[in-house]
């Protein structure tokens, strides 16, 4: 183990549960407890809980908070109601992605940004640098917050009864702040699994109490292994796979989150040009014939020439099919196009499909 590896406030719980631990984004994180497939199915069919305390949290406060968030964020938060949440990206001038994130609107002068653990230092530096000239105050609160995600069709019932937090009224992609155990706790109806669920942000002590209550009531602990298989099946991107500083949101087929009608934001010019002129490549879904499993980085070929590569691939736990997301050059990105995926010594036939391999089951 690296000497400077970090741990979350629930690390001792994971070790006691016998989790298989592995470094992820600088943290020693649980990959699985019981098995990836069992944990995956618990979330699809019942409920599971994830330790996502490694995620970063940044607060933006000040008279120009809304204007500043709109400057660094491709989605549009203008005039949104308090308690609304937005998904989107921060982009560089060239349209490459700094990170994808959730933006929580507390009120007109306060926003709460949830960013990827692997990007915290880079993001905070980027946000600070671009805040120059804006009347805002930026605080990195990543070390204060613990976070758990309770996900699955029974998530609402679990949060209400086991944790005693009344979340029935929280709508999809909104949040509420609760006064619990003498502190402010943020609970949102969000997640990264394609199922209904909640993400709960509080102090380390609060997060430990929440985790222990969920364990005592028999909720399945879920590791990062099934977090990836779950998000993948419903076509959600992972920074580092489908989004990078070299892949724009347009190329990632996520242009619905890019609001080009906003007056300005970093990367607007490049993204508007991509949208108008078209991109040369795009993230699509692939379905393979047979059982071979496509993995990140495997080449996609047409007539022996490489036309793209796999960004994420699995044997889908929910459907049993070998499927992948892949970055494919045009014109091979069209639905139904026949391609081949090179897996070690052989190539396997595959077809371009929609990059949603399992239907989302959100409660809106």
């Amino acid at each position, binding site marked *: 183990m690296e000497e400077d590896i970090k741990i979350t406030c629930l690390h001792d719980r994971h070790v006691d549960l016998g989790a298989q631990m592995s470094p992820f984004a600088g943290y020693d994180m649980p990959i699985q407890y019981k*098995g990836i497939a069992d944990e995956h199915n618990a979330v699809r069919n019942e409920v599971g809980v994830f330790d996502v305390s490694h995620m970063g949290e940044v607060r933006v406060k000040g008279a120009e908070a809304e204007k500043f968030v709109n400057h660094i964020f491709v989605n549009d938060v203008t005039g949104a109601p308090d308690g609304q949440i937005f998904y989107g990206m921060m982009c560089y001038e060239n349209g490459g992605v700094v990170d994808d994130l959730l933006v929580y609107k507390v009120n007109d002068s306060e926003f709460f940004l949830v960013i990827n653990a692997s990007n915290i230092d880079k993001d905070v530096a980027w946000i600070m640098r671009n805040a120059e000239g804006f009347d805002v105050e930026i605080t990195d609160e990543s070390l204060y917050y613990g976070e758990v995600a309770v996900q699955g069709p029974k998530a609402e019932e679990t949060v209400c009864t086991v944790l005693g937090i009344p979340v029935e009224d929280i709508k999809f992609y909104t949040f509420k702040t609760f006064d619990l155990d003498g502190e402010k706790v943020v609970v949102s109806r969000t997640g990264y699994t394609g199922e209904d669920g909640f993400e709960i942000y509080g102090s380390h002590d609060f997060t430990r109490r929440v985790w222990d209550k969920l364990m005592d009531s028999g909720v399945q602990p879920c590791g990062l292994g099934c977090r990836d298989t779950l998000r993948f099946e419903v076509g959600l991107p992972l920074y580092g796979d489908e989004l990078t500083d070299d892949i724009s949101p347009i190329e990632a087929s996520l242009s619905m989150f890019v609001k080009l009608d906003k007056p300005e934001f970093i990367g607007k010019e490049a993204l508007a040009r991509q949208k108008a002129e078209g991109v040369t490549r795009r993230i699509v879904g692939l379905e393979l014939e047979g*059982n071979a*499993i496509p993995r990140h980085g495997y080449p996609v070929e047409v007539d022996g020439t490489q036309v793209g590569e796999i960004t994420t691939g699995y*044997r889908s736990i929910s459907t049993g099919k070998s499927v992948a997301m892949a970055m494919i050059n045009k014109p091979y990105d069209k639905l139904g196009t026949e391609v081949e995926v090179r*897996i070690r010594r052989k190539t396997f036939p595959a077809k371009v499909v929609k990059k949603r391999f399992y239907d989302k089951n959100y409660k809106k």
Partner: protein
Amino acid sequence: MANVLDDRRYAESHEWVKIDGDIATIGISDYAQHALGDIVYVDMPEVGDEMSAGDVFGAVESVKAASDLICPVSGEVVEINEELEDAPEKVNADAFNTWIIKVRISDASEYDALLDAAAYTELCENE
């Protein structure tokens, strides 16, 4: 600690090899199946493929990752375990009785150079 049998030899890459005449039967160790977790796919070569010791002959794949299979001996692949195409989980259930390929060996000394049970046990304990 995972099970190790003393009726066969082992490669440092965790394949086991059992010899019967000039036929080497090859699988992966109990330690390896345990480390991989639930195996969902076994990629195998074709009968007739020629292997040199150290060649990648296939892969065992868990949900999360693919792990190369390395041929510990040289020779021609004479049989593959077709049962694994539909039931890869057999490797998890009984790694030492679930072979993956059989190879007609061309150099018996390669087998003798592999780890015996004691040496392999020590290797696993140090991982």
